[in-house]
């Protein structure tokens, strides 16, 4: 009797356990299917969205390139005598405050080194600080510099200086296009208004910024003397590096 009852209970318990195991297995299977489906949707959605994002970041091959720029991809403005033994490359963003400081403290030294024929300066202006203004000033200023160089090559030097002298504060609306046109006129480029307001070289600004990033520029100002990086150099450090490069 006792054994019969207990075996009946054992059987009942066994059935119960089996049912629980089945429920568990069923739930596992269902969860697995849901997870698989979600994962598949995730892969597809992210894949498509990534293509959209890369499309937003690409520029058409037929986009306008300003003339009077040098280097592969027309990235740089070279100032000074081509026979100069040392090349100083300067990567700057017109919205970058440290670049403005660099222009104030080291700019004159760089200019005199250039005039003495010791160095040629390769300006590679880029635009990666659009988030620092409400109007993408970084891009608009670089486009304006390209317009000036394109139409009045000799005015670039003065315009470059004027842009840093008139640099708008961070997180402001930046300079309006009308002010950029005015500065360009003052530098000696009278006919760039439509180029500036129409952002003729906007795609080009994306290309040169991308090219600088690929060349290892992760911030501005980046200064290179014959290809060797100088981290935010003082006038003395720059002069010393130029002298060393001229000897070597």
């Amino acid at each position, binding site marked *: 009797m006792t054994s019969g009852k207990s075996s009946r209970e054992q059987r009942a318990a066994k059935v119960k356990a089996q049912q629980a195991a089945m429920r568990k297995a069923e739930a596992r299977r*269902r969860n697995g299917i849901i997870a698989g489906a979600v994962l598949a949707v995730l892969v597809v959605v*992210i894949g498509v969205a990534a293509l959209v994002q890369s499309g937003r970041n690409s520029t058409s091959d037929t986009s306008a390139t300003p003339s009077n720029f040098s280097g592969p991809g027309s990235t740089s403005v070279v100032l000074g005598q081509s026979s100069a033994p040392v090349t100083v490359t300067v990567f700057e963003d017109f919205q970058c405050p440290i670049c403005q400081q660099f222009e104030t403290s080291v700019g004159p030294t760089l200019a005199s080194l250039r005039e003495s024929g010791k160095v040629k300066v390769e300006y590679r202006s880029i635009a990666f600080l659009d988030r620092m203004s409400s109007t993408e000033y970084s891009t608009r200023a670089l486009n304006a510099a390209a317009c000036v160089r394109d139409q009045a090559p000799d005015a670039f030097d003065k315009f470059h200086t004027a842009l840093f002298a008139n640099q708008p504060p961070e997180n402001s609306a930046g300079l309006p296009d009308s002010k950029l046109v005015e500065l360009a006129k003052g530098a000696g480029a009278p006919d760039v208004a439509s180029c500036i307001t129409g952002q003729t070289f906007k795609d080009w600004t994306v290309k040169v910024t991308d090219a600088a990033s690929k060349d290892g520029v992760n*911030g501005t100002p980046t200064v290179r003397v014959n290809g060797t990086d100088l981290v935010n150099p003082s006038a003395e450090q720059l002069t010393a590096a130029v002298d060393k490069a001229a000897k070597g």
Partner: protein
Amino acid sequence: MRLETLLTGGLVVLAIAAMAFVAGVPRGRVTGGRLWFATACRLVLAGYLGVAGLLKLPDPAESVRAVRAYRILPEAVVPTVGYVLPLLEVAVAVLLLVGLTTRLAAALTSLLMVAFVIGIASVAARGISIDCGCFGGGGDVAEGATHYTQEIIRDVCLLVLALLLVYRPSSRLALDPTQDTDDLDLDVPDLDDDPTDSATTTGTITTQENPS
């Protein structure tokens, strides 16, 4: 900066609470408190990932440059990672927000956090000064202007919360149908385990055995 410190402080408290839940709550005891705590973990993770992803989406080029600034990945994969990472963050944030496939979403979050910690620790160890680009931005910053320690603490705390959800994904306010099947069934195999329940069973057997 002050806000970030405050948020990270809150995260540390939450992560400690998460570890206490794992260590202190006996297995099988599914309390409402634990389910609500899991919901809080989900929402905090969703908040961080969602904000981080959404801030990066408007400027894919910047996102690519931020990845490049770590100087870890080969150039061939840098753009892909730059495009995919913000999207993955947003997608996982949505899953966590609604509580769909919580365990999968939490596992992906854990992988992301491990990758972020390795990345930040790596640039710190190499003496490179960058903005982590965690919430947009990125690129080099002046020496001494980095926040590596705080960033690593934050990501480790987020990792702890994510791992808790991998371990126990059930939570309140979730779309997941797992609530009553997944770890409730795993942890409470049968009602017979309940001491009060087995006492009555024994009682019945005793009374039935007496006549025979």
